């Protein structure tokens, strides 16, 4: 009885104490604090783990290279389990630590929405590499959001172009039938505007097939595909939905060569379980595919993994999502470097300064080569108005063992995407009663 009471008291005490204990250590000079929101547990862990490993590996690599002009990165991870409330909690917990976070990568649609509302007050820029709100590419409305190197509308646009190319020209799409199997969530619905726009322009018939999250039950969806026999199927899924869709396609006998996935549907964890069954399946790569020969990958293996300092398993280094994480980390770090160019080399930057840096990125081929990212992505430059910086993408397909690039560089059509971004951002601004930034504000 006594022990039980003691245990109870200890538990309550522990709960009480720990909520008071602030985890903040004393900020050390010359360290740029880099919080990492990761989901290494929960249903989406197979996707979240390589991304987090890529980010942390790259930060470690930057430190091994001597930091950003001498400023070392201080890495702290927080586990979100892909839960919006926990992501927000992590964000709130980390943002003030160690002198304050200057930039954050939410890595979840729900968290991006929630943090977007908080960022302007906190003055912390959000780097959302290819996810989150597509319209946040408009920097005049979304001052603190950076969907760098392509957003969902670029991905959707390139997917339609790739299908058009296979048919021998976009005009050949007339009268064809394309099914869109999408995750029924804001993430999945991001696909609709761009693909509907393209359907109108080229006269193909679009069949919309929403799949309820998490997407383990798709029998009905694939029955519909079996009946309507679309010429192509676009898969806009996340996590377990992708492998389920591919297995269903296999069971239905729908040719995988005619399936085109968004970039969240085009990584190793999505197809590994299906293996040969996914052979020939295509997906859009928002710039990066898997690349085991990139200079960066070799450097990471030699500098970190060879010394036992790597974050994840070394087989994973160079895979699609690892590289995605590393690329996101690289663009973030380069944003800080650009900020240092203006506000003082070798100094720790704050959120406002990093925001300026991210708005004035100019990564030339030479710079990318020097960073080890040659061939992984194309040169990219951002501006105050354009927070995305590039419309480029490629297609890759799964050959049963690895993702192989199968197309040249393709470009999302600015003529279509830009007005859409503009309109959606204006709508957001009107709803929130925001006034878009003036050219004068862009200088700050």
């Amino acid at each position: 009885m006594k022990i039980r009471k003691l245990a109870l008291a200890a538990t309550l005490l522990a709960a009480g104490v720990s909520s008071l204990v602030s985890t903040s250590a004393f900020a050390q000079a010359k360290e740029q604090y880099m919080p990492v929101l990761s989901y290494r547990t929960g249903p989406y862990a197979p996707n979240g783990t390589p991304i987090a490993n890529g980010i942390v590996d790259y930060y470690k690599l930057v430190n091994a290279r001597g930091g950003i002009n001498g400023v070392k990165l201080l890495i702290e991870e927080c586990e979100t389990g892909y839960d919006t409330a926990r992501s927000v909690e992590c964000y709130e917990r980390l943002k003030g630590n160690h002198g304050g976070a200057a930039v954050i990568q939410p890595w979840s649609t729900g968290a991006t929405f929630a943090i977007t509302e908080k960022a302007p007050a906190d003055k912390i820029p959000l780097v959302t590499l290819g996810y989150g709100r597509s319209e946040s590419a408009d920097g005049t409305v979304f001052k603190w959001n950076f969907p760098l190197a392509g957003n969902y509308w670029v991905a959707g646009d390139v997917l339609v172009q790739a299908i058009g190319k296979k048919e021998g020209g976009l005009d050949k799409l007339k009268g064809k039938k394309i099914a869109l199997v999408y995750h029924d969530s804001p993430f999945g619905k991001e696909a609709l505007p761009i693909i509907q726009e393209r359907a109108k322009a080229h006269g193909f018939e679009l069949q919309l097939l929403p799949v309820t999250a998490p997407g383990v039950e798709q029998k009905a969806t694939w029955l519909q595909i079996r009946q309507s026999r679309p010429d192509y199927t676009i898969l806009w899924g996340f996590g377990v939905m992708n492998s389920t869709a591919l297995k269903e396609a296999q069971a239905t006998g729908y040719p995988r060569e005619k399936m085109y996935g968004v970039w969240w549907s085009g990584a190793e964890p999505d197809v590994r379980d299906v293996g040969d069954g996914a052979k020939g399946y295509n997906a859009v790569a928002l710039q990066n595919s898997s690349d085991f020969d990139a200079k960066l990958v070799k450097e990471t293996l030699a500098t970190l993994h060879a010394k036992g300092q790597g974050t994840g398993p070394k087989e994973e280094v160079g895979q699609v999502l690892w590289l995605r994480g590393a690329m996101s980390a690289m663009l973030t770090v380069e944003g800080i470097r650009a900020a240092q160019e203006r506000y003082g080399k070798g100094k720790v930057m704050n959120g406002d300064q990093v925001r300026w840096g991210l708005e004035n990125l100019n990564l030339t081929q030479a710079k990318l080569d020097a960073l080890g990212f040659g061939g992984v992505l194309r040169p990219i430059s951002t501006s105050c108005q354009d927070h995305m910086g590039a419309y480029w993408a490629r297609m890759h397909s799964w050959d049963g063992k690895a993702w192989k690039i199968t197309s040249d560089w393709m470009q999302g059509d600015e003529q279509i995407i830009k007005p859409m971004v503009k309109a959606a951002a204006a709508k957001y601004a009107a709803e929130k009663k925001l006034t878009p930034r003036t050219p004068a504000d862009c200088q700050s």
Partner: protein
Amino acid sequence: MLYRENGQFKTTYRADQQIFPIAQDRFFMLALLALAFVVVPLTASDYLFRAILIPFVIMSLAALGVNILVGYCGQISLGSGAFMAVGAYGAYNFFARIPGMPLIPTLILGGLCATAFGILFGLPSLRVKGLYLAVATLAAQFFADWMFLRIKWFTLDNSSGSVAVSNLQVFGLALESDVSKYLFCLCTLAVIALGAKNLVRGAIGREWMAIRDMDVAAAVIGIRPMYAKLSAFAVSSFIIGVAGALWAFFYLGAWEPGAFSVDLSFKLLFMVIIGGLGSIMGSFFGAAFIVILPIALNQFLPFLAGLIGRDISTTAASHAELMIFGGLIVWFLIVEPHGLAKLWSTAKQKLRLWPFPH
């Protein structure tokens, strides 16, 4: 010694029937209110407000609503997440569609939307009971999920189906800072909790409890089951709806239907079961247990590992957190099946005899 009602004589019925008949309880409550309204706003950090206090206050409100239905009226419901969603989207639609709509009527209208929805999905309770009712209310959950995902009208035809609010103000005061948000939520909670406490002490609360304890007997002594059950659904879903609107407006700011998934319904049910069925106090304990404990564990474990000089990865900490949390739930339910509120009242009982127990 400290907690004894000796010498406190009641000379009127009024004094005898007040919420806290014992003077010490009143002082304790006043101290607690002073702590919540004065000390906390002066001392708490940004992080505490945004990540712990605001969610705790809002979830307490939601748990209170669930407790009225499940704890007091005995109607097991798995549709609480849906009621929150209806409250949130209802309030959003009033707020966004009517220019210059003030905040407090918006929240009340959101709550009323949830009330209507709750009564509609409470109708099966007239025929089915217990676990069957739980399954029937689950339908509300799936219906709401479907409704807010697919009917674009509710989300103002936003292409992605996510919505956002901003420029919240009440009586001309902007609710932008964390303190003001916290205080607003706390005031709402205090008002509604006081109302709920009085409801359950009154005639209608007794009807609910009679229905809960044995509906046939209740009907025999003249309680109308339909009225009692539907009024419980109405009051409960109103409170849950207001909580949902607060959750969306003040905690999330921008949200998608996924924020009110079936997980939330389960969480709310666990809150009232762990906190204590049929106890207003229990709702607060339950909300604290479910909202604060995982976060506290998550931060305490690396700290603990640090004490013994070890480094614990975030993955290990989060797995350990789930295991310890699960273990604690089982342990608490074994030690005290009537919930944390029962522990509280046992403690009070012991305190009356302290320091000379029999």
